[in-house]
Structure formats: structure tokens, C-alpha cells
């Protein structure tokens, strides 16, 4: 079944280059993502039953444990929602004449290549191949970011590819040091094998491991949007088409964070404690939240604001993994899930708003609740959710993380995080809430939802985040616990 995960997007890409008519393309897309969701569910079940999924007959190339399964599930669910949403979104764009048939095909081919590379990164055992896949995600998504071909989009795409490629190259340097640290310990066929590195962690060369961690954090942190390497994120996430923004923000950042988590697991196991990585991660996390706070307060573009909010949440996840207690890791993993669902819901609904009002500026949008009833409600509730309001899921995971910070007696960090989160809530409230009320002043906007499949998708996501905020299903809890045990080391 693991191969299904990889084969389906690859086949989809092939099909897209052959299929010409729009309805066929929509069908292929939704079928492919539905198949991926089924495969992911099956694999999760296998992992819950047996612990890991690996196929020794294929040379142990694929290796899926609880941590991989968790992130694979996120990718599959958001992939399905995004492809449902894309149907309505692209129909609307086509009706306005902004995309033609060739661009359609390009969009779908690139999107499924993107999903393929992300799945590849999550399911391989060899860290080198994971690196290749993450670099490939940058390459696959560059033209998606620059899809609209305007001046801003081209600038965003250039920044994206340059900064992320340099970052990934630095991560490769870190991986080289990782290999260097294991050079006397492992046989050459086992180089960069995550399970081998993890089990021999205590005898790895510690100074090379230190260098490896720093470079990998800088490198994959660039891709994950940690400050101070986050400068590409607001541009790329705001200029990309909205379904792609949802994929970038909800899924890609998680993949990059996954790379960091794998490395942190090895390093902490090797040193026996988490002080070295912890300090650096907490520092990077606090810096990210700080940077996000400063910029959220002065935003004029709602998609950019959402992008800065992604930076903030990645910072929170980094802090969670810096604290490195069982509770904080549980909270960090839960936060990854919750943030992905909430943020993709927000980006998808912002896509609806953009299509209706044709502007990205907050000040030009008024009376959203009347013009777009369902989207407006979802967007409003989503903003509450992302700022950490109960009963939504982000509140639950943030609560767990902050509890764990105070449990470890890091009072200063805890107070700082609470303060910054409060400021962010205020900032979002002040800037965004005026979009929903008031009379609609732009004349050419008539009430009514444009993108019906999209509305269905975002409503489904809203339901998910509300439900998981109140009650975590047992399977999910077990999966999270298993993943946390893998990271901490049993």
C-alpha cells in the first residue's frame, strides 16, 4: 500500500499530460486524492497495528512509522480538500478568462508532482533521499507560486526559489556532517539510514553532530519558515493561487518540520539530553513568533497576514520540540495537525473572498458576511480558531504546549509566548474583523457564493477542527502517542 501512496500521484501526473477536457481533469484529480486518502488511512491502520510499515523486499526503501503516518495523513486529507476546492476555483478563473487550457494542465501537473515529492519525502528511510524530495518540492512549486505571472507573482517566485534552494543546500551540508559523524560507526550501505543512525545514536561523533544539527536547522528551517530565514514565506504564500497557498502553508511547512524533527530525535538521543537543541529551537521559535507579531500588526493584505500567522505557528511548534518533554512533543505534533487544517481552511476561504472581491487589500473589503454567507462565517470562525480561541483545535494544542513550557519551569519563555499570542490575537481582530461587517461599498460585487465545491470543502474542514478541538478520537491519540515515543526514544 505504501507504493500506492507514491504511484497514484505519479500516475496522475502522467494522466494529466494526456487528458484534455476540463471535467476529465477534475475527475482525475479528485479520484487521485481520494485514492491517496484511502491508502493513507490503510497505512495508518497498519501502523497502529504493527508499529511500522516497511517492505523489505524492496530493499527497505520505504519506511513508514507513526510520525510519518501522521504527516502523511495530513497531506492526504488536505490534498483531497484542496482538489475538491480547485474544481470550483479553476472553473471561476476559467470563466473570467484568466487561465486557459494549457495553464490548467500545467497547474494540475505541477500540483500532483508537488504532492508526489512531499509523499516521497515522508515515506523514505534514507535521509539523503528525503533531502532530494524536499528540494524537489521547491522546484515543483516555483511555477505554482508564480502562476499568475504578474510582477508580484514573479518576484515572489524568484525569492522563493532562491532562498529555499540556498537553504536546502545548507541543509545538505548538515546532512554531510551527519554522515561524517557516523563514518566509523556504520557500514557504508547504512549511511544516512534513519533507523540505523537512531539506534547507534549514542556512539556518533558529537562535534560533527552539533554542526550537522545547526546546518540542518538553518536549512530545513528556511523551508519551514522559521525566523530569520522566513522572508520568502509571506510573498510566496500570498502570491500563489489560494489552493496552492493552502498546500504550501498546511502541508509543505509540516514536511520541512518533519525533517527537523527526525534530526532532533537523533541528536537528542546521542547527547542524552536536549539542552543543546532545545536552546536553539526555543530561540528560533520565539524569534519567529516575535517577527510574526510585529508584521501582523501592520498588515494590509489578508493573505500576507495569514502567511505571517503560519510563521507564528511554526515558531510555536519549534518551541514545543525545543522543550522536548513527552507532553510538549504530544502538543507539538497535535499542533502540526490542527494548524494544517485550520490554515488550509483559512486559505481556501480567502480564495473565495479573492475571487468575489478581486482585491487582496483588507480595507477594500466590507460586509463579507452578507455577500458570502458561508465563506464569511467560515473565515470569521477560522480567524478565531487560528488565534487560539476555544472550542477550536488550535486552542487545545497551544494549551498543551504552554502547559509543558511552564512544567519545565521556563517561565520567561512561557510568559513571552502568552504575551505575543495575545498581541497577535489583538492584531488579527483589529485588522480583519472589519472585513465582515458594514455595508459593502464596492459596487460590482453581488451576494452569492461562487465556488460551491470549495464551500463544501471549507465547511468540512471547519467541522473537523471544531470536533477535534472538543474530542480527540482514540486512534489519533494512539498515533500521536506512538509518534511521540519514537521521537523521545521509548
Amino acid at each position, binding site marked *: 500500500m505504501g507504493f500506492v501512496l507514491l504511484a497514484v500521484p505519479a500516475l496522475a501526473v502522467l494522466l494529466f499530460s494526456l487528458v484534455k477536457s476540463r471535467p476529465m481533469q477534475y475527475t482525475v484529480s479528485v479520484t487521485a486524492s481520494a485514492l491517496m486518502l484511502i491508502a493513507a488511512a490503510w497505512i495508518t491502520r497498519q501502523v497502529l497495528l504493527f508499529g511500522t510499515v516497511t517492505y523489505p523486499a524492496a530493499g527497505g526503501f520505504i519506511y513508514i512509522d507513526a510520525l510519518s503516518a501522521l504527516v502523511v495523513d495530513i497531506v492526504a486529507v488536505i490534498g483531497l480538500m484542496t482538489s475538491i476546492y480547485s474544481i470550483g476555483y479553476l472553473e471561476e478563473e476559467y470563466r473570467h478568462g484568466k487561465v486557459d487550457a494549457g495553464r490548467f494542465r500545467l497547474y494540475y501537473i505541477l500540483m500532483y508532482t508537488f504532492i508526489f515529492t512531499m509523499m516521497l519525502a515522508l515515506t523514505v528511510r*534514507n535521509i*539523503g*533521499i528525503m*533531502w*532530494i524530495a524536499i*528540494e*524537489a518540492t*521547491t*522546484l515543483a512549486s*516555483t*511555477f505554482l507560486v*508564480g502562476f499568475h*505571472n*504578474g*510582477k*508580484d507573482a*514573479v*518576484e*515572489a*517566485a*524568484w*525569492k522563493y*526559489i*532562491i532562498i529555499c*534552494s*540556498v537553504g536546502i*543546500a545548507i541543509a*545538505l*551540508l548538515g546532512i*554531510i*556532517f551527519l*554522515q*561524517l*559523524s557516523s*563514518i566509523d560507526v556504520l557500514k*557504508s550501505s547504512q*549511511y*544516512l539510514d534513519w533507523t540505523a543512525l537512531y539506534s547507534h545514536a549514542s556512539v556518533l*561523533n558529537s*562535534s*560533527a553532530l552539533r*554542526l550537522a544539527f545547526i546546518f540542518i536547522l538553518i536549512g530545513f528551517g528556511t523551508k519551514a519558515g522559521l525566523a530569520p530565514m522566513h522572508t520568502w514565506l*509571506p*510573498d510566496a504564500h*500570498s*502570491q500563489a493561487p489560494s489552493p496552492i497557498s493552502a498546500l504550501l502553508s498546511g502541508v509543505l511547512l509540516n514536511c520541512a518540520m518533519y525533517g527537523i524533527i527526525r534530526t532532533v530525535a537523533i541528536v537528542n538521543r546521542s547527547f542524552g539530553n536536549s539542552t543543546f537543541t532545545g536552546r536553539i529551537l526555543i530561540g528560533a521559535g520565539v524569534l519567529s513568533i516575535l517577527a510574526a507579531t510585529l*508584521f501582523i500588526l*501592520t*498588515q494590509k493584505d489578508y493573505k*500576507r497576514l495569514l502567511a505571517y500567522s503560519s510563521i507564528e505557528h511554526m515558531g510555536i511548534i519549534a518551541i514545543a520540540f525545543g522543550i522536548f518533554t513527552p507532553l510538549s512533543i504530544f502538543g507539538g505534533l497535535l499542533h502540526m495537525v490542527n494548524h494544517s487544517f485550520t490554515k488550509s481552511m483559512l486559505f481556501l476561504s480567502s480564495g473565495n473572498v479573492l475571487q468575489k472581491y478581486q482585491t487582496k487589500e483588507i480595507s477594500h473589503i466590507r460586509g463579507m458576511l452578507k455577500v458570502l454567507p458561508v465563506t464569511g462565517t467560515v473565515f470569521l470562525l477560522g480567524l478565531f480558531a487560528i488565534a487560539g480561541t476555544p472550542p477550536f483545535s488550535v486552542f487545545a494544542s497551544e494549551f498543551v504546549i504552554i502547559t509543558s513550557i511552564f512544567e519545565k519551569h521556563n517561565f520567561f519563555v512561557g510568559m513571552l509566548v502568552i504575551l505575543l499570542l495575545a498581541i497577535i490575537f489583538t492584531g488579527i481582530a483589529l485588522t480583519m474583523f472589519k472585513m465582515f461587517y458594514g455595508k459593502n461599498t464596492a459596487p460590482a460585487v453581488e451576494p452569492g457564493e461562487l465556488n460551491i465545491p470549495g464551500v463544501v470543502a471549507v465547511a468540512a474542514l471547519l467541522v473537523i477542527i471544531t470536533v477535534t478541538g472538543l474530542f480527540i478520537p482514540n486512534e489519533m491519540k494512539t498515533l500521536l502517542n506512538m509518534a511521540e515515543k519514537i521521537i523521545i526514544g521509548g
Partner: protein
Amino acid sequence: MSSYLDILSVLLLLSSFVLMANKRIKSHIRTFRFQSAMIALAAGILGVNSLIHEGRVDLLVVCAVIIAIKVIYIPRLLHRVYANVEYKVEKDFFLNIPILILGCCMIVVFTYFALSKTDGINTGTENMRVVNSVSLILIGLFFMISRKKAIGQIVGFLVIENGIFVTAMFATQGMPFIVDMGMFVDLLSAVMILGIMVFKINEKFDSIDINKLKNLRG
């Protein structure tokens, strides 16, 4: 054999300084080609050595791939991209060239001090080779941020990748074969995409001056 590798690593460092000191885009591409040729030579020497002692051909295949991609194809691609934009010589800089070269020297000193504490690679010639390779990476990064034109950034990125490959080769006798191949495929696609992006930038902004990309601020 070890002395040939030493000389090659020193020549690589020298070429990175020459890259920094140059103002013409054609010389940048030519210096990059020379650098890649040196790397291919080093890979070839190590490959022949491993063939004789261990019977493995992967380093030789890697050497052939480097020659095909970095020495032949990518410079030709860059020449084609650069032929369509008007800038042939960088006229102004943020800092002038002697200061940039001095900065590169500081980078080498800094790398030496940073790596001298790492055991496993801080003995004698191994140390020098790794210091040279890591300095190559950092000088590539420095080059990237000191240039105002898009082509400079592409060349800087290529030098960074060169440096990383050489570090892998000298410090750890090469990455696993499939990782190397994946790296090259990635690099090739990255350069092709960057080339297309330069065309698009030239189209939209009528120049390839990176400073003009300032619309998205805050």
C-alpha cells in the same frame, strides 16, 4: 595522489577568489566551468583510486555526470540565458571589490577556526581540504548576496552546490550513489527553472537588477 587532491582543493579556493574579483558575467561563467572541471578531476582521481582498491565504479560515473552537466551543459544554458539580457558587466556594487575579497579571506579564517574544534577532520591535509571546501560554500553564499544582478545569484548558487559536493567528497569519501544522482538531477532542474525565471523577470521588469524587485515589502 593525496597531493593532487590538495592542489585541486587549493585551485578551487583560488578560483572562487577569482570569481569574486571579476566584474564580467562571461568570466563568472568561465570561472564556474573551470571550477567544475577541477571538481570532475578530483572525482576522477578518487574514482580511479576506488576502482583500483575496491572495484567500485560509482565515483567514476559521478565524474562523467559532472563533466556532462556542470562543465558542458550548464555553462551553455547560462550563456544562452545571459545572451538575451543586456547586462554584460556589473557596474556598481554595494561594497567595492577589494573589500569583498578581504571579506572572503575573513571567511576562510573563520572557517578554519570553526572547523578546528571538530574532531575527525582536523588533522593535517584532511583539515585543509575540508576548510577549503567549506570556505567555497561560504564564499559562494557571500558572492550571491553581494551581486545585484540575477545571473550573479544563479552563479553563486551553483558555486554553493559545487562546494557542498566537494565537501562531501573530501570529508566522507562521497555520498551514497543514489543521493549523488538525485543531487545532480535536482541541480539541473533548479538551474533550468532559474533560467526561465530570469527570462520572466526580464520580461516583467525590463531588467535583471534584483534591487528592482521591491514591490512586496512588509
